[in-house]
């Protein structure tokens, strides 16, 4: 019976364990802080968010001008 499969599976398993060790070691902050930061970012930037707040027609580059004059 060939040893290659066994060696291959071992390598895969070793890689998986190495990856899990790395992911287990990351630093994590508290969800309360993370959630608060998200909320604050949204609220602080709300007025700058055109899709949320709308912009006056004059400032809207996509809106056609109300009138035009042809000479």
């Amino acid at each position, binding site marked *: 019976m060939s040893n290659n499969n066994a060696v291959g599976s071992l390598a895969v398993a070793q890689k998986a364990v190495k990856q899990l060790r790395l*992911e287990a070691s990351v630093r994590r902050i*508290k969800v309360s802080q993370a959630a608060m930061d*998200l909320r604050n970012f949204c609220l602080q930037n709300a007025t700058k968010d055109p*899709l949320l707040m709308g912009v006056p027609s004059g400032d*809207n580059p996509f809106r056609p001008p109300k009138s035009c004059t042809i000479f």
Partner: protein
Amino acid sequence: MGEMEQLRKEAESLKDQITAARKAVADATLPDTVSSTAVVGRVQLKTRKTLRGHLAKIYAMHWATDAKLCVSASQDGKLIVWDTLTTNKVNAIPLKSSWVMTCAYAPSGNMVACGGLDNMCSIYNLKGKDGNVKVMRELAAHTGYLSCCRFLSDSEIITSSGDCTCLLWDIETGTQKTTFAGHLGDCMSLAVPGDFKTFVSGACDFTAKLWDIRDSNCTHTFSGHESDVNAIAFFPNGNAVITGSDDATCKLFDLRSDQELITYQDSSIMCGVTSIAPSLSGRLILAGYDDFNVNIWDSLKAERVGVLAGHDNRVSCIGVSTDGMACCTGSWDSFLPSFSFKGQDNVMRLCKQNKQQYL
């Protein structure tokens, strides 16, 4: 086989450790944190411009950083660069392969890229000396379809592929610099944050992964979706990612606390999410679905606060401009007979906020 069993046990133990570590920092929930915040008012976006010119389904679009130009890719075998303010076509680039699935605009505005079933990422120089747009590089190494690509600069681009890997390329030499391997299914989408130091990928193994670009390590794997993750984007502050999946939900994963904070779902929504984009502040999440509707979610309250205009706007891709002014959708109306090019088929629509909303 002692070592295999040992490794299996260690893997299980590490997975339990990660679960426990996530739970240990879960001292609150997002819904609780925003319980006193009001839901945003109904969002109504009005179509302001229609970009006509593609002759077949638009698969992808990407805004330029100037928030005026954008590029779209269609299976009519063309990349079109649009001036969204005038609706003029700045460039119409014929492609060698019409089976295109993705396109990207370089931050500098000098190049665009695309790829698809040809397994390659083709880079086009928009600012060539003689004014003609030519293929600059053909990046070939993936053994599966190109699902997404994003420029880091004029010299580097990241690609995601159906071969389950992502690659970082040196555009100048046309060679791969780094391989990001780890996903157990086709990589469907990728997103790069403002600092260009990391990127996230969504895949058919139901996970999203955060990668360090320089050392090629995957530092976080986010599970929770019950099917393929088709779409992924960074929350504007760079600390969270939003994903869209075939399981009909979108999720928000926080990077610093390493866990899911909320799911955007509704029992009436039963089809997969194909595209996703946050508004400038992150408060709105625009998500395109397989039924070609776009739902607009309040990202904090996880409530649906709008849809994009009705039956004539069947969406295949979506993008919010870098200044947050407009959302562009690529659409494909299947009700029109295929022999007729009249009417509103295969168009890109730019939508803008219709009226003042109160928070």
